[in-house]
């Protein structure tokens, strides 16, 4: 049963540099180096703010993937990029991803709180633990530590950062003597207008969800099906309750890949054309990486063999995200496609996140359905090409949601934490 919720959804934009599809850079609206052009990033911030959106979001890893055909692996440093965009905007929240494996807690705490102060209390930190040996080799390590060890470090790292943020307000030194960090001192940065920068977590492994239930105020999730999304929504809200928190203190925001058009036909054509303009090997590569199995070895016209779908041999060393893998496997089991069918299907449903191809009106229906089903508090929207896709969200989707009472007409709060607090409460079903 759906129970009607009142209040507003949260709308975020996950920038993915130029958009989620590799061919985004070929848009006639972009120059060859828009991905490093300050004017491009300012426009993203201003357009999102025109739509009174809650937050813009930047994923991150301290490593370069091959940018030959795709701007997605190219990464300006997120705190600096959003710091720049904060200067060009007034109300929109800004979330930067940063690794607990490859940062120092004192340095990162000082930097995040400084950026929070300079943005007037609009900063958020997406806590990730980073995967992959290539990233580790930029920090003098042959490989990343095991998954559980990464999350142990993340847990203590976040505790230190929170204590340091509080020290900025109290003026008292912290004395942290933990398993991994020994640290005495305090921050001399002006305290946060929003209390503390907002904490988000991305990742769906058990330890990842544990961290979310304990400290995160938002979860960037990967969900392909509404049923799984409801299950995970309830799980994280329950974990929050178990930690003595209100379920309203942690907002669940799955990603949603978008191609929008003024008709469904137009949206499909746009999606197909963008896919065709991108490199073909991508979907096979992406699937291999995500499920921990070389997908080029699979028979294209057979269903997925059971041993491929079964849990990866070792969750400690599996390179992909457990959250993504679980979501993909659930969807394959549900529809039992051949490999070819699945690869074609993922062209429109995308990369572990659910995908949506259609009109702004249909997208509003989709958001409304997941919202009232208790699957989400909001979505982190991922347009195919930001340069025009974001404007459609701001100027077409948002007015429809407003008419339906699902979104505010103007900003009523001016910090990221304020935006999150002003959103709809958790439904009784969760």
């Amino acid at each position, binding site marked *: 049963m759906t129970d009607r919720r009142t209040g507003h959804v949260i709308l975020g934009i996950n920038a993915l540099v130029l958009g989620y599809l590799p*061919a985004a*850079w*070929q848009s006639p609206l972009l*120059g*060859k*180096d828009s991905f*490093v*052009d*300050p004017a491009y990033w*300012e426009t993203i911030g201003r357009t999102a703010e025109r739509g009174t959106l809650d937050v813009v979001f930047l994923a991150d890893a*301290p*490593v*370069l993937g*091959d*940018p*030959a*055909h*795709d*701007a997605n*692996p*190219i*990464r*300006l*440093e997120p*705190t*600096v*990029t959003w*710091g*720049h*965009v*904060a*200067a060009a905007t007034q109300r929109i929240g800004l979330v930067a991803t940063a690794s607990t494996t*490859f*940062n*120092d807690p*004192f*340095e990162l705490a*000082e*930097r995040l*709180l*400084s*950026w929070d*102060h*300079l943005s007037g209390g609009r900063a958020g930190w997406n806590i990730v633990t980073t995967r992959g040996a*290539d990233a580790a*080799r*930029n*920090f*003098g390590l042959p490989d990343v530590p095991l998954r559980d060890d990464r999350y142990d470090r993340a847990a203590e790292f976040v505790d230190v950062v929170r204590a340091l943020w509080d020290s900025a307000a109290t003026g008292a030194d912290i004395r942290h003597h933990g398993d991994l960090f020994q640290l*005495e*001192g305090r921050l*001399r*940065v*002006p305290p946060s207008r929003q209390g503390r920068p907002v904490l988000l977590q991305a990742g769906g492994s058990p330890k990842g969800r544990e961290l979310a239930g304990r400290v995160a105020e938002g979860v960037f999730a990967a969900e392909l099906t509404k049923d799984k999304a409801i299950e995970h929504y309830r799980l994280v809200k329950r974990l929050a309750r178990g930690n003595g928190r209100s379920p309203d203190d942690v907002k669940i925001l799955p990603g949603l890949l978008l191609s929008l058009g003024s008709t469904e036909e137009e949206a499909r054509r746009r999606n197909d054309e963008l*896919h*065709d*303009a*991108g490199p*073909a*090997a991508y979907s096979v590569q992406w699937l291999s990486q995500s499920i921990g199995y070389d997908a080029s070895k699979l028979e294209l016209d057979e269903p997925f063999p059971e041993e491929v779908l079964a849990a990866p041999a070792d969750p400690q060393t599996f390179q992909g995200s457990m959250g993504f893998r679980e979501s993909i496997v659930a969807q394959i089991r549900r529809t039992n496609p051949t490999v070819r069918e699945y690869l074609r299907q993922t062209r429109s449903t995308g990369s572990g996140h659910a995908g949506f191809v259609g009109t702004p009106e249909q997208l509003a229906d989709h958001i409304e359905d997941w919202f009232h089903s208790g699957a989400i508090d909001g979505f982190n929207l991922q347009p195919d090409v930001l340069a025009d896709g974001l404007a459609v969200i701001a100027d077409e989707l948002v007015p429809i949601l407003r008419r339906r009472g699902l979104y505010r007409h103007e900003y009523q709060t001016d910090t990221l934490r304020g935006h999150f607090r002003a959103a709809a409460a958790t439904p009784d079903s969760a």
Partner: protein
Amino acid sequence: MPAPYLALGLTGPHLVELTSSAALLARWDALPAAFTVLGVERVDGSPPAARTLDSSAVGAALAGQTTRGRFLIVASPQRDHPYNLARRVASLGHLSRGRSGLLVGVRDAYAAPDRATAARARDAARAVRALEQSWPHESIIGDRETGILVRSNEIVHVDIGGEFPIAGPLTVPEPPTGASVIAWSGSADAPDAVDLVIGEGGAVAVAVLGERPPRGTAGVLLRAEAEHSVDDVLTAAERLLAGDFRPLAAGPLRAALGLAAPPPRANGRAAFPVPQPHPSL
């Protein structure tokens, strides 16, 4: 010898004051100074002030709110890793349109104590330079015919050792204005990657605001003290720039200081294969 250029050295409380006032920012931006050091007390051995802000966060705000003022962010690789620092330096190079650079120090008194040695600072400066040069800007071609955005085989690993072993490459291309200016505090132990030495024996002498600036150097850095407000600093700078000091026109930092582009690095190991024109699905 031409008249010296003028640089400013602001401390933590000045950064808080400057960034909270549109009027002060406008005056700062209009000043034909060479550059401003964002948090000079982080490198000159001073004790921490009552208030401060992270230097790169201030740089990002200045890049977004101003159009001509130039600045050096300050970093001591005591807790931070140069790979992270290089990302911020290169990103600011793009976002400020070449108005930014880096001043490397050994020890930062704000940070909770950790390893702080000259060797780490030197290796960090070298790493930042190498990483910024690991991805040449000309490799970005955006060719819609072949579907090739970047000739990524021109991007190289840095494969550096020392205090911070790093494989590279960096996550961003070199700014179109070239590798960022790297400055060093004091002439002792300056590594080869440094463009500019500030303080003892360097091209830029340090003078405390209110004292008579020294003569005979390319530039003078006017260091603000705790008792000075940002208005005091700007007023003094405006007066000096109308007098004996040489105003510098707007433009990228490296060009403004007349510094030569750093030599390209010797060819490294290609990070990626030669991109193939991709067949569509």
